[in-house]
């Protein structure tokens, strides 16, 4: 699946949970949301993204290791 599409969605989730100020807890919440609502092939495609990808928000980079 198109990586840009998934990166945009993941970033958007991270942004909307930004009220959680502890970065660890916030990454957990984002990962939890993704596990709850994303179909496995979407998660796989997100995991295939290079963590150095310039569009990934720092929070989502931390999420990658939690999925």
């Amino acid at each position, binding site marked *: *699946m*198109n990586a840009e599409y998934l990166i945009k969605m993941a970033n958007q989730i991270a942004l*909307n949970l*930004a*009220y959680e100020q502890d970065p660890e807890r916030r990454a957990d919440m984002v990962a939890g949301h993704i596990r709850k*609502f994303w*179909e496995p*092939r*979407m998660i796989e495609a997100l995991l295939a993204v290079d963590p150095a990808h310039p569009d990934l928000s720092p929070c989502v980079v931390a999420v990658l290791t939690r999925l």
Partner: protein
Amino acid sequence: MIGYFDPKTDRDLGTPASLSTSLITLEIDGEQVQVPEGTSVMRAAALAGINIPKLCATDSLKSFGSCRVCLVEIEGRRGYPASCTTPVSEGMVVRTESPRINKLRKNVMELYISDHPLDCLTCPSNGNCELQDMVGVVGLREVRYGLSVSNHLHLPKDTSNPYFTFDPSKCILCSRCVRACEETQGTFALTINSRGFDSKISAGANESFMDSECVSCGACVQACPTATLSENTVIEFGQAEHSVITTCAYCGVGCSFKAEMKGNQVVNMVPYKDGKANRGHACVKGRFAFGYATHQDRITQPMIRDRIDQPWRTVSWDEAFQFAASRIRQIQAQYGTNSVGAITSSRCTNEETYLVQKLVRAAFGNNNVDTCARVCHSPTGYGLKMTLGESAGTQDFDSVEHTDVVMVIGANPTDAHPVFGSRLKKRLRQGARLIVVDPRQIDLLKGPHYQADHHLQLRPGTNVAFINAMAHTIISEGLEHSDFIAQRCDQAAYQQWLSFISDSRHSPEATEAITGIPATELRAAARLYAQGGNSAIYYGLGVTEHSQGSTMVTGIANLAMLTGNFGRPGVGVNPLRGQNNVQGSCDMGSFPHELPGYRHVSDSSVRQLFEQAWQVSLADQPGLRIPNMFEAAIAGSFKALYCQGEDIAQSDPNTQHVEAALGSLECLIVQDIFLNETAKYAHVLLPGATFLEKNGTFTNAERRIARVRKAMPPLAGKEDWQVTQGLAAALGYTMTYQHPSEIMDEIARLTPSFQGVSYARLDELGSIQWPCNDEHPLGTPVMHEDSFTIGQGQFIPTEFVPTEERVNGRYPLLLTTGRILSQYNVGAQTRRTANVAWHAEDVLELHPHDAEERGINDGDWVGISSRAGQTVLRARVSSRMQPGVVYTTFHHPFSGANVITTDNSDWATNCPEYKVTAVQAEKVTEISKWQERFRHLDSYQRQLLSESQAEA
């Protein structure tokens, strides 16, 4: 089998019920009668089985006392008081008949008849005329005045309305129509012109009905005791001979109707008095727009084709099922189990929706099922579940009668939920206060005898900043309901939220620059909401269809908890649902991550329950949501889709993207009543049945489960649940339901909130609001009474994150989309009725300032472009819009409104952001490229369809 439901009472008791609890005893014709204080003598007599003659009284309207045919004798009182306007009193002794009373009544009737055309035998109301009945009851035998004196028999008919005719020569000036338009509908379109002999009912200022304010709700037609206001179908077909009680299939109000039938023909639809959602009222769609059911465009036979550029082949049901099933199995063999999925419909019944998700989970073997609620109210499910624990509105519609402050956010009830709109306006006329939060000037803002206290005209896309400012104001001014918060809400969550919301970045002064709402106005509105008594929030798609739809729903729930507005009549959080069964389709497990009853697929104990019942093992990972299905289709990993009763090619955003996705499917199975836009990309076309042709249930916006009853056989031979069952059998998964009641029994067994629901129970109670279980055997009108479903209410911080869809030099305007009264959703049904008289095409509304800047005049062709695409619509210059904001509807496919909407979506649920698109508008002379292609494809696919039908 057609099941008839026998209504408990359909008698007109003359005047409305009194709500008083203290009882009065009186004597009527020698009988002791006990009734609530405030009851009229007429109603008391009717309750005792005595029908006092009447003409101007009817129990849906306040009594008026003009016809004088209802007079009675009361011991100790002089004269002959009108029984409809005389309230009962303790010990009263009433006589309803005597030679003197009869003589007076005869005189009254004689006067009416002397000015009435005596063509009863050929009159459309023959057999259903109250004037005729009363003449019979009083025994009038001669008319002394004759017809030679001046009369009104020459007055011309008004046939301007496509659905009813006004024949003033038959009018008895009882003013029931005038009062129905005022009291029931709240439009005030009718008046009695001048006085005495020249008096005449007129729409507006002597206009035709069509040119007046009339919204064609039909309340006046229903109230008229004579043939003066008659449905054209009754004039054409005559009086019905039986009726079937059923539920409207248009909007989420879920009005209850009597389908008045003659054999298999619907003569007219009469809103059912005992229907708890509508209390005997209806709108132009449900009451009149049923002609689509017998429209010549209906698909009547299953059809298949190998490729979408081939003509359709008409086949038997069996061949269609085999063809579809073998394609699905081939695709799964080649691309994997997860390469197929389905979309359930919010227009189909609960039972049908349940079966489609069961087919996906049990026969396809995955969770790739979603519903069109994805594109409208999925954020409601998310936000309310996270904060309160249940994905549904908290009240019944009756609740509004106890509301002191109504806050309507991003909803347009007078157009999109008309019957609720009327009930709301009634409450506003009684003095409830109103706050409207909407970028547009909506009709609700001002009506006869009321006016909104505040119109917070925010910029599209700034909802969350607004709701945060409301909460901030309430906190900073100390207006929160501390006891409620302490007793009912989670304290840790509240403290976290409190420190979030107290920050000055949420103050109205700080958010004013974002929302455009003046801080003083917002503060005043917040005070009113917090301190005005029972405050209720009603919201619509203007809340959900945003990139922060879920956040906004959460913010609304926070605000209601903060002010203690939960758990009793008059308060709460009330989503106004778009389509008739949005609530039901969500309840029934249409979401890819949830089994019926909103239970996550990863919960092994829930899975086990269904695995045992369905005799299969179930996938434990969420499936694809609709937008994800499109992405996967384009990426090549999603190849087959079964789409029941939805037109995703027209209703979903970014049409060209959707078309690309549909075009890349190897098997698209469409089940619908018409060749819709989606069907143009289909390989299998399965004819659907309208709500008149099947049994089942719908669940409306107040969680009310109501029966849909079959009034005529399905045109193509199968109800929709039977079609799904046939497809399942061809896939090798057998379902053996004989009747939808058996499907409901299974739902009740497997879903705690439906535990007490059955068809027998629904017949008994009329309708049931879930949860219905041992604790609430009669259902639950008001939720969260003593505690929230989740236990302690959860405050959740709601950070405002501006949408990426922002205006810039290239796209300087914001486009927002909406609905209008006479058309419904993608319009497939309403466009095939006379409702087009009100809305023949979608137009672009824009502010005079924006129009002038671009040299655009009313009626010009305007090209609207966004980064997703371009389309052309006609302009309507209107100051309902703010400068910089333009508006359109998407009821007609050719308009291509969704060609311009983008695939931006809600962060939590992927609900598309229909309400905000950055666009440019300019004057053009020809249609857009997309529209040209659309025209071409449309005529090509229609040709393929007619070729197949010629063959058959």
